């Protein structure tokens, strides 16, 4: 399973320009502009309430921006309904895990294949040969994801009973099952312990390098951010603070003040990334 490697890396995949989002009296996002290049891992960081997940929800078209717009491969997202975003090749995970609780892991991943379905309701009712073949094909693709993320022994388990760490991986697997060009990961390491976070770092690397998927990520764990990100955008209270490589952003004085805390924390961080 691989996505388009024929397109040149480095070209711009997603552009957000002058995005802002107002919820009643709250300006959650204010004048945010950035672009994400094909093949890179781009991370949004910032304290809670900085507007990072709101940006994600704007990309997923769960909200409509108050001003500004987003385009993906040149196409304006504002023209699309929320369910059409996946068809473009954008997949996402959710901060608080939005899995299909009363279905098995396998069924969750197969639902991820929805945009690739070749049948309509009529052929489904008769379960024609074409539907059968499409089902087997979908199963093959999904099994590849299962193998990548080591979910084999949870394949038939009902999601509702699974431990938190596994559910996070299933969220990721489901997003990957859609064969996305751009993957939006909302706090992939939240709630995970050190080993699980290390696994996550490896997976994000694999997703970027082996699968050729571009990753746009929101994250709080700075070591994960430095390990996998190509570029970082720091936000605070809905506004952009700094944009650049992980090191550039982490040493930016404004970012340090808003987010990273005292000078000692930064020094210890400097030693690690040196």
């Amino acid at each position, binding site marked *: 399973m691989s996505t388009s490697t024929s397109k040149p890396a480095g070209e711009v995949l997603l552009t957000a320009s002058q995005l802002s989002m107002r919820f009643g009296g709250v300006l959650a996002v204010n004048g945010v502009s950035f672009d994400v290049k094909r093949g890179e891992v781009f991370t949004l960081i910032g304290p809670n309430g900085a507007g990072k997940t709101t940006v994600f929800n704007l990309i*997923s078209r*769960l909200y409509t921006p108050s001003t500004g717009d987003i385009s993906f491969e040149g196409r304006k997202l504002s023209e699309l*309904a*929320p*369910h*059409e*975003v*996946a*068809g473009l090749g954008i*997949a*996402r995970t*959710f901060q608080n895990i*939005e*899995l*299909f*609780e*009363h*279905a098995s892991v*396998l*069924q969750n991943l*197969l*639902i*991820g*294949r*929805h*945009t690739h*379905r070749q*049948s309509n*309701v009529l052929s*489904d*009712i*008769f*379960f024609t040969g074409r*539907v*059968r073949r*499409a*089902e*087997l094909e*979908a*199963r*093959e693709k999904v*099994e590849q994801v299962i193998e990548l993320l080591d979910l084999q022994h949870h394949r038939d388990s009902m999601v*509702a*009973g699974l431990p938190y760490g596994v559910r996070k991986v299933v969220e990721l697997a*489901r997003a990957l099952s*859609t064969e996305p060009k751009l993957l939006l990961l909302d706090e992939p390491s939240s709630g995970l312990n050190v080993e699980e976070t290390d696994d996550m770092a490896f997976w994000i690397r694999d997703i970027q390098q082996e699968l050729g998927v571009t990753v746009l990520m929101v994250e709080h764990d700075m070591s994960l951010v430095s390990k996998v990100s190509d570029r970082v955008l720091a936000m605070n209270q809905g506004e952009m603070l700094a944009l650049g490589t992980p090191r550039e952003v982490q040493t930016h004085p404004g970012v340090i003040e808003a987010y990273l805390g005292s000078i000692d924390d930064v020094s210890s961080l400097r030693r690690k990334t040196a």
Partner: protein
Amino acid sequence: MRFIFKTDYAQDLRLAKHGGHVFWYSLLLVALLAAPFIVSEYWLAQVTFILIYSIVGLGLMLLAGFTGLFSLGHAAFLGVGAYTQAVLTNMGVPFPIALVCAGGLSAAVGIVVGLPALRVKGIYLGMATLSFGFIVEEIFARWEKVTGGNAGIHIKAPDLFGFKADTGNSFYWLCLVITVASTFVIMNLLRSPTGRAFVAIRDSEVSAQSMGINLARYKSMSFAISAGLAGIGGALYAHKLQFISPDQFSILQSIDLLLMVVVGGVGSIHGAFFGAIFLITMPQLIAGVKDYLPAIIGQAPGLQGFVYGAVLIAFVLFEPLGLYGRWLKVRTYLQLFPFYRAGMFKRQKSFQKSDRLK
């Protein structure tokens, strides 16, 4: 104990998971085919009703159990199907064509009733469907030119291009065929992308959308299929009773249908059948037992309602998986004996979270 050794993805697609399934269901089919020769005419009529209600139950199970959409006025679809069939058959239209029209018109009404589902959720949707139910019932009563109003109408026997299914046996086999076909329709839907989309909508609309599922389209589809099946069931119901009137399609009937789904076991195909069996046999049981009860209880007009209510409460409290769930537990107990553990089917304890924020 049975272990299913999987060697092939195609195995997971199969409807019958293993040899035992094939054996027992084939046996059941044979028994059903032979029923007219085994049971009395009276009981055959009861079985026919069970089949008819199963068809409706399958539809409602799809809508409420698998897509998670509240339908408190489902009897309306039953009624639309019944009246369409009655009117067309009385005009001389052959049975198959009338049946298709009955199902089709019910499906269309289903899409209309489902329109609120595109905007509102949960109890509000329940209220919308409840309202439609009352309005449709009133239309049946008022549109006297077509429906005969409160006096009701009689229906002629099904005429399949010359072959008249006017005996108890022939009508029974007709219903059996249609029931089996409906079951296959639902089973196929559920193992295909459409069925999965329904389940996705039930569990998390937000992520269903982000997986590319068009909520409006699939919700309407679910309503349409569900209503269509109810319409087909209604058409057969009309033929069986040979007389229909608006009060047969009231809120009480809608609640009966929901009762069927809950007692049978929400979210399972077997549930529709178990529920239908319950719905048809319970009045028989009550009628049989009531002479042994003290007169105060036995002769009370509200006895049936009381029993239904009590059973409903009991199932929601003690057996949320319904009759099918109980059957599964019993079967697992027998299969795993003596290793059955009491906690095997225990549900996750969940604290109540606000539905308004879904």
